[in-house]
């Protein structure tokens, strides 16, 4: 027996009389960890890493949907309100829609007419709220958003027709003429390029036409969006509520596939981490077969031995899981920041799973070697065979 172990044995003997018998169990647990610091630390390290990776993966898996949904909202509207049979929407449709969406999305009205340029060309003129359009249709490449009254945003293809020299121009609709200055151009690659956009106030004052379409980019799961659509139908009976299927279906597919891939990756990573813990811990317990043999030789019952190693494993599992959880939340938050430019919200609902998983793995890795060792005579182990 080397010096350190001898000292500790003496210390144990000295303390034995003073301290109540029950603390022997705790003492053995602590001593085992302190005396074999290196191996205990490596077992704890494996546990912490495994718990951290598991926490991070579960957190990401839960959160990735919300993160990607936000990306998909950049595709613009997923719900469109139109007046039934081509009629205009009631004037309060936008405020109504806004109250239904309640901050979880963007609502933008559009009014459209076909006007004539001063040389008689037909052109589509749209009225909208530039502030909202800017949030809704982020892909619009706009050189300069109009700010003042009677300023227009001109599509890149419409520009040579209405204002080839970037000069002020007139548009007329049903005998009424409006004088506009081009503030900037809009380029989208689709029908917007052939249009002229005005602020809604200017548009209504000029043409007297109310918005016929309200585009809504609602955030949330597909069930939440379906609920928003039902509430919209109730709130604005004069409007027809249409989902933008193209966006919704594409989003559902991509989200589903990404989540499935992430789930497969998470399963692989968690399995590997668990096996890593299992092999490290089993090594650690196996390595202490002498402790085991001494305890047994001194008359410890099987139940006590099982309890001892199980308690040790449970303590290790719990500590590792808690430290790993904090670390994993950190990793998930970092990935969120780096990849999505938004923090991943810590999901404390993940903690019970991580804790339970760690316990199962550590207990398993303690019980398996013990079950093997129990069949061996202590004398054989102590002789080092």
């Amino acid at each position, binding site marked *: 027996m080397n010096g350190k172990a001898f000292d500790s044995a003496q210390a144990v003997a000295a303390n034995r009389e003073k301290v109540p018998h029950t603390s022997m169990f705790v003492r053995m647990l602590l001593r085992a960890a302190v005396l074999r610091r290196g191996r205990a630390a490596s077992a704890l390290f494996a546990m912490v890493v495994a718990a951290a990776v598991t926490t991070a993966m579960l957190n990401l898996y839960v959160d990735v949907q919300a993160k990607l949904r936000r990306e998909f909202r950049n595709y613009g509207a997923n719900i469109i309100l139109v007046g039934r049979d081509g009629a205009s929407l009631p004037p309060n449709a936008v405020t109504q829609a806004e109250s239904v969406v309640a901050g979880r999305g963007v609502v933008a009205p559009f009014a459209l007419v076909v006007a004539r340029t001063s040389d008689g060309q037909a*052109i589509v003129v749209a009225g909208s709220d530039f502030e909202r359009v800017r949030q809704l249709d982020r892909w619009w490449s706009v050189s300069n958003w109009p700010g003042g009254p009677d300023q227009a945003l001109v599509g890149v293809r419409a520009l040579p027709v209405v204002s080839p020299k970037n000069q002020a121009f007139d548009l007329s609709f049903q005998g009424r003429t409006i004088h506009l200055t081009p503030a900037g151009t809009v380029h989208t690659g689709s029908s917007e390029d052939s249009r002229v956009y005005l602020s809604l106030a200017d548009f209504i004052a000029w043409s007297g036409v109310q918005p016929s379409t309200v585009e809504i980019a609602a955030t949330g799961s597909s069930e939440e969006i379906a609920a928003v659509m039902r509430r919209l139908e109730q709130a604005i009976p004069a409007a027809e509520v249409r989902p933008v299927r193209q966006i919704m279906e594409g989003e559902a597919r991509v989200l589903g596939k990404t989540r499935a891939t992430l789930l497969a990756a998470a399963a692989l990573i968690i399995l590997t981490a668990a096996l890593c813990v299992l092999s490290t811990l089993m090594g650690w317990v196996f390595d202490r077969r002498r402790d085991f043999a001494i305890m047994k030789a001194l008359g410890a019952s099987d139940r006590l031995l099982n309890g001892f190693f199980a308690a040790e494993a449970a303590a290790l599992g719990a500590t590792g899981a808690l430290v790993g959880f904090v670390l994993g939340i950190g990793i998930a938050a970092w990935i969120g920041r780096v990849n999505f430019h938004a923090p991943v919200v810590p999901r404390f609902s993940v903690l019970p799973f991580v804790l339970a998983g760690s316990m199962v793995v550590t207990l398993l890795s303690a019980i398996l070697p013990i079950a093997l060792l129990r069949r061996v005579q202590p004398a054989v182990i102590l002789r080092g065979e």
Partner: protein
Amino acid sequence: MFVRLVYESFRRQKRRKLLAGAAITLGVTVATAMIAVATDIGDKINRELRTIGANLVVTPQEDTLDVEIGGVNLKPPSDGAFLNEADLPKIKGTFWHNNITAFAPMLPVTATVQRDGKSEDVTLLGTYFAKPVAFGKEEFSTGVKTTYPWWKVSGAWPEDSSRQVLLGERLAARLGLKAGDSLSVSGRQLEVSGILSTGGVEDDEVVAPIAVAQEILRKPGAVRRVYVSALTKPEDALARRDPKSMSGPIYDRWYCSPYPQSIAFQLAEAIPHAHAEQIRQVAQNEGAVLTRIEGLIFLVTLAALFASALAVSAAMATAIFERRAEVGLMKALGAGKLAVASVFFAEATLLALFGGLVGFVAGGMLAHQIGRSIFDSQITIAPVLFPVILVIAVIVTFAGSAAAIRKAVGLDPVFALRGEL
């Protein structure tokens, strides 16, 4: 002697070697599968994103303004310029033809539907459904069935060479028609093969083979615009530059990267008198989504590599730690530190090579399985990755063993043989 030592060690300690080998195999399997998934995920998600619709549009160069509200075209039908249908197969002749998954020409015309003595003006959209097209020796089929997967048809899709049409669901409800009925459009008898539901403006339209629309317009071969669905690379600073301002090598790099801009540029080159550009709503956002998902899977792959490296290290450390007595014996018989370490490293290398080989095959199979069950398509692992994976496996095994080996060779043989530390 050295060879015998290593050989006997494998022969006599089968259980331990199997355990360590299994850990390495598992680690390599996970690493290989994740690398395969990560390298392929961009392409897979790109294909999924194509379900959002075409990302490029080809229009005639000298076109007049579109005058269109809610899908109703208010421009005189023969106004403006057209593309020539005969030029379309050239789309598949561009440099990036493999990235072009499908294209669909569009020719909207105004037609009159007669029904029960009443007549109504509707938009008739001429297009390809799934038309077989040949370019050179290559044959492929293209049309709205591929470019717009969210179009749902109850009934049957029309044949491209027939006089069958799809009727938008709102128009069908208004006219009281169903699949199988016949319909009189601008004096022609057409058969309704199915009812189309898109959630968009097509619900109010008649969708017909393009030849029918050309016949109504009396302009054979005319195409108003072509929607092209292409697999593209997310835009970066180079993509946004004007190709005219680029010098030779930079221009080549731009031209040979599948940016939306460079594919559009090549489409405009291939089709005479055409202008091509990206549909920003689709093209811009798919770049963003793709970058995010690729980034996510890349980081997750790093985590997987880290976890498998750790598992391999842990297994190796445990395996070596268990053999202290052996080390003590070797040293007591006069073996130097170097001799002992080289035995262990040789064993580690053998294990790593074997585990790497089995793991690579298993990882490839796992990736294949993931690809099949999630994406319904193959994920194949590039054979060039094999040596890379093997080298990584050897390095990780060495790194994992190094600390344990150093500790083992540093032991006092007396203590080691007595089983004490």
